[in-house]
């Protein structure tokens, strides 16, 4: 059996080893992230079968759980680390060709550390340790957003950094308030003691934690940084930020609400926030001319839908939310990767500049189209079963509130369909410019896109492949007593 701590230690160690390899040969550096993440992918797949029966709890330093930091490799943690490893691996293969300029070895180090931080957040069972890994994730993404060092990159990194830093300070205050009341940092231990506390003294720490984590999760009033940061980062990083960083933030919000606080009173409010996030995101995306900004706003919309589905808090709802999260990760990463080479070829971020490019770069544009269709929710792609599940979960509650909200969500989906079809139409059906010969993306970049497409289609046709894992992940999130029992014994 693989010890879950290796999922963190191996990428971390490889990131530290990169300067040493660079000393030997600079060219070898770009192969290190794929190798380390490939190891993670294999390890998580090996773990997955085991944790579906029983979560694996490992403590670090050899003490008993409340007295040390522990990792909880339950279905949720392993599912998320598998997604992180998979998307990270594919994007790192893409980046081998895409990232040529600038201090590339620093890029690869920061990239690997970002994914280490993300894996740490989803695996840890200790709230302060979650904060530390969250900082690893955030700080490396600030630096990577500024990687191109152009005007837009630096400016959006500054915005991102200030909002993120305030968020993490609020998170730390929340942790301090929790520690002051319960005298422990272990999430299961806090969750056990929290039932005997008065709700009024819990409300403030909960709001602080959700606000702090919500900055990274891009929940509605806290997401001013996102469109700039996602659109001005290198495309491979945009894919990771949209596909992994936000999702990890949402995971942390879900963990705080469901496992630590077990709060049900705040859920209708969160559902409303989710729908607001969705509508604002889709409306802004509709009015964009810049393709990366459009994709970034569409991420906000999708996050809103996921948050709404999680806030339904039934078994259907959480399963649907997690499914939608997986589908968004795969589709949006694919879209950003494809857009990266389309922008590279045309030299412009404007949608109008992409006219007729579908004939020049057929494979890249096909990948983009499939990603867009999947995101909108057309069969036979992965977006269809996931959106279907969310709608079914909302209707199954038989509450007018959720039914009205899901109606608004469908309105958002219509807007989403409109702007994606507009782009696809520009790609294929606009008058062709003088044909300067075909120049598709290089093979190294096409392979990861192809794998994304295959995954999107296969899971779209056979959703049964993932629903088992998603179901047990949902039940881990909803049954906090099981979580407490499995950690504290």
């Amino acid at each position, binding site marked *: 059996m693989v*010890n879950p*701590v290796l999922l963190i*230690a191996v990428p*971390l*160690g490889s*990131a*530290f*080893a*990169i*300067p*040493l390899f660079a*000393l030997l040969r600079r060219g070898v550096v770009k192969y290190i992230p794929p190798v380390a993440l490939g190891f993670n992918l294999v390890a998580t797949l090996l773990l997955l079968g085991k944790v579906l029966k029983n979560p694996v709890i*490992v*403590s*670090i*330093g*050899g*003490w008993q759980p*409340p*007295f*040390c*930091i522990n990792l909880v490799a339950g279905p949720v943690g392993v599912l998320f680390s598998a997604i992180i490893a998979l998307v990270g691996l594919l994007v790192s293969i893409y980046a081998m060709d895409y990232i040529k300029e*600038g*201090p590339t070895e*620093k*890029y690869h*180090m*920061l990239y690997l*550390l970002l994914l*280490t931080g993300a894996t*740490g957040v989803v695996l840890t069972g200790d709230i*302060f*340790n979650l904060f*530390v*890994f969250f*900082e*690893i994730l955030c*700080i*490396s993404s*600030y*630096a*990577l957003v*500024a*990687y191109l*060092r152009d005007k837009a990159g630096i400016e959006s990194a500054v915005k991102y950094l200030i909002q993120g830093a305030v968020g993490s300070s609020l998170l730390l205050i929340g942790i301090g*308030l929790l520690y*002051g*009341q*319960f*005298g*422990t*940092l272990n999430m299961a231990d806090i969750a056990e003691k929290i039932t005997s*506390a*008065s709700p*009024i*003294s819990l*409300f*403030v*720490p909960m*709001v602080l934690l959700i606000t702090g984590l919500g900055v990274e999760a891009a929940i509605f009033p806290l997401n001013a940084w996102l469109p700039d940061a996602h659109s001005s980062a290198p495309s491979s990083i945009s894919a990771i930020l949209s596909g992994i960083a936000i999702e990890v933030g949402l995971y942390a919000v879900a963990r705080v609400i469901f496992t630590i606080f077990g709060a049900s009173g705040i859920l209708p409010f969160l559902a409303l926030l989710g729908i607001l996030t969705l509508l604002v995101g889709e409306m802004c995306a509709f009015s964009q001319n810049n393709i990366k900004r459009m994709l970034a706003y569409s991420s906000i919309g999708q996050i809103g839908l996921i948050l709404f589905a999680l806030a339904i808090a039934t078994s259907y709802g959480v399963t649907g939310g997690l499914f939608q999260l997986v589908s968004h990760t795969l589709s949006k990463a694919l879209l950003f990767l494809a857009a990266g080479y389309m922008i590279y070829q045309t030299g412009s971020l404007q949608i109008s500049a992409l006219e007729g490019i579908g004939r020049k770069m057929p494979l890249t544009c096909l990948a983009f189209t499939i990603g867009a269709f999947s995101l909108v929710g057309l069969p036979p792609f992965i977006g269809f079963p996931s959106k279907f599940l969310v709608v079914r979960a909302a209707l199954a509650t038989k509450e007018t509130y959720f039914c009205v909200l899901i109606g608004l969500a469908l309105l958002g989906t219509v807007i989403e369909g409109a702007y994606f079809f507009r782009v696809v139409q520009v790609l294929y059906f606009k008058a062709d410019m003088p044909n300067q010969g075909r120049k598709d993306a290089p093979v190294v970049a096409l392979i990861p896109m192809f794998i994304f497409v295959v995954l999107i289609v296969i899971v779209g046709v056979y959703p049964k492949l993932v629903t088992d894992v998603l179901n047990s992940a949902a039940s881990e999130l909803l049954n906090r007593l099981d979580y407490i029992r499995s950690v504290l014994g």
Partner: protein
Amino acid sequence: MRRIIAILLLIIVAMGINLTLAKIPFGTPKTKVGTHYIKEGIKQTGSDNIVTAVVVDYRAFDTLGEVTVLFIAAIGLGAVLTAGAGVGNRKTQPASMVLYTGCRLLFPLILIFGTYTFFHGGGFQGGAIVASGFLLIYLGCRERRISQRAFILAASLGGLAFVVIGLMGLVFGSYFLLNFLPKSASNMLFSAGVIPIIYAVIGFKVGSELASIIDNLIEES
């Protein structure tokens, strides 16, 4: 307008926090976890400073994460500030003779003091002292520079050593970052198992990372 909104927002937050603080009276007896560390810490870790025991043993994983954060900042600073969009050289004047000699004399002393602090005070403080030594060298003797690469290399060696110590714990005792060396109660340098080693590694790493940050910031680009 912006000020009024800000003040209103802060008043609301303050009222909320006030409600919760009533539950955490100042100066009341400590918590279960803290008591456990104080009672068992010296036996379990061999370190007579319980804070050190918590930082380097019970919560060593946090510390690993924290030196990683500093490493990321050093790397990120290098990535943001490396030449490329250079805006011309700033003129530098050579330092005066007194300053030059003073810096050269003080530098080894600061290094020795920093190294002493690694073992007897704590890794972070020692690292900061070493980094301030490098700051002094940059202010005094501008032509003496250590290449940026060397700092990053030192920092990554430190990080690698930390991870390897952790993995050795996994190999010898099936727990990551296990304190696998024998411990004794006496207050010797290595009485606390791996704690002094890890603290020295942290100091080394923090020192080179902070020095790299200063070096990057001060560099005329």
